[in-house]
């Protein structure tokens, strides 16, 4: 489904403080499977996630999504693919403070101009599935860590993406909440979604739900 060939990524490219975060990554991510990128901090996991999810472009190499080369597409097209095909769950959740859980969930669909009633109904259903319907009108800053993560997952699912990308999803959660996340992960796989996540939490990488673990270090796959 997603294929990376010789992907390299540099920050501050061509400047004195140039830094290479990825060195020639070759990787094939299968559809409807859970793939975990595992490695210590600074190994390049998050950078790789941003490239796969069309948030950033590789400095060198190619990324193919559903047999289509997307590494050289202009920003506008990349944004379109990102919006339709990828849902992101960020490590720090990155919810918009001062807005309700429901509004946060609907946010990625605003630029589509989808009719309000349809969008509203879908967001309500997602929150219900995530057992958060009773908190839908609460401002996100009033929610617990676990609830905030569920809102972030709901936001990732609002455009019904084929791929869900989660960056260190259990890093800010205790064991009970991490297990809860694994339950949600199971349902995502059950729905036929492809999941790509980064983690060095044994609870995640040792889980039977994860089909494949990709170990990384210093910007390389081991």
């Amino acid at each position, binding site marked *: 489904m997603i294929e990376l060939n010789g992907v390299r990524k540099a920050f501050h490219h061509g400047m004195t403080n140039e830094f290479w975060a990825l060195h020639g990554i070759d990787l094939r991510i299968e559809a409807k499977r859970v793939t975990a990128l595992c490695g210590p901090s600074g190994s390049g996991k*998050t950078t790789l*996630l*941003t490239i796969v999810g069309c*948030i*950033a472009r590789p400095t060198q190499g190619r990324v193919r999504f559903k047999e289509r080369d997307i590494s050289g597409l202009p*920003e*506008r097209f990349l*944004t379109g693919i*990102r*919006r*339709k095909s990828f849902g*992101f769950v*960020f*490590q720090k959740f*990155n919810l*918009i*403070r*001062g*807005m309700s859980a429901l*509004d946060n969930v609907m*946010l*990625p669909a*605003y*630029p*589509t*101009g*989808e*009719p*309000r009633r349809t969008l509203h109904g879908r967001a309500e259903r997602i929150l219900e599935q995530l057992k958060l319907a009773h908190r839908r009108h609460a401002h996100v800053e009033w929610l617990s860590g676990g609830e905030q993560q569920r809102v972030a997952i709901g*936001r990732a699912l609002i*455009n019904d993406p084929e791929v869900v990308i989660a*960056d260190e999803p259990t890093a800010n959660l205790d064991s009970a909440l991490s297990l809860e996340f694994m339950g949600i992960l199971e349902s995502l796989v059950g729905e036929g979604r492809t999941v790509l996540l980064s983690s060095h939490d044994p609870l995640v990488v040792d889980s039977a739900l994860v089909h494949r673990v990709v170990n990384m270090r210093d910007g390389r796959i081991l």
Partner: protein
Amino acid sequence: MNLWIEKQRYLIDFTLASLARRKWKNLGLLLVYALLVFVLASVTLFSHALRQEAARLLQDSPELILQRMVAGRHDLVPPGYMDRIGQIRGVQKKEGRLWGYYFDPVVKANYTFMVSPVAGLARGSIEIGSAMARVRGLAAGNVISFRSYTGDLFSFKVVGVLPRNSELVSADLVLLAEDDFRAFFSIPPGHYTDIALSVANPQEVRTVAAKLASALPDSRPILREEVLRTYAAILDWREGIVLALLFGAILAFGILAWEKASGLSAEERTEIGILKAIGWETGDVVGMKLWEGLLLSLTAFLLGFVAAYVHVFRFSASLFESVLKGWSVLYPRFELTPHIDGLQVATLFFFTVFPYAAAVLVPIWRAAITDPDAVMR
């Protein structure tokens, strides 16, 4: 089309929520902005209404006034001039007018004494302007005395106070009988202050004026349109002074707007990064921020303009009247007829809303094109 409208509605919803999240900062900006519009709108609305008022009142004034000049100064018109004017073709009606100024040391104000042929006043009686009635505490039936320039004391009975709707030009007016006027100012019979003329064909006013200047070389014809132009010039000049003084305020606001827009807080930058990461395009972010600017500036414009309208037409522009009206002691009190000029509103709108939108566009664009992957790190 429906998708586009729905999308704009979502962007407006998000913008309103975003403004509410930083309500004190935005409220402060809104107040300063509305205040600026209020001041500018007050000045322009008031000047425009004054011009309209003056034009309305001068509509009934004579088309042509003839004054006699001696050594470049205005002097009395001697007997015989009226007959000579009568021989000029095109003059329909001529009327010798008597008027003059009188300084009242009691209230340190100047009055305009004038003979009114239509008032039909009896000797010893006067009608006065309402500002003068206010300042001297006079009402119909009261008696007032003035010492003439020859030192003699003259007493008059006030028989009426002029209506307030003409106060713009009648604030300091004293109407009296011709005999009283001549006695008070020692003007011999047959002499007049000036001559008011009406011309049969309005297209020929300039031709008649030229004929008068040629037949009576020591005279100066004054056209009604010239009087109107002088009024307009005085008001333009005063308006210009006020606007020049306000230029500093406008500049300060421009700096504030620029600072506000370019100094996007870390929270706002993070928000933009999040929006882009979850699928908003640069154009969506710019659109959202443009709505923010537009909503803010439109609200400020409406608030400022409505406040200025009330200030000018309900409270007679009490904050600026001393500068714009220009009377020293006898301030006329009158409620201006509400009059709004579309072009004037459009100009004001352009000069207040457009600069703000332009000032915030570049910083917003710079913030909107930042890489969304910043929020991942």
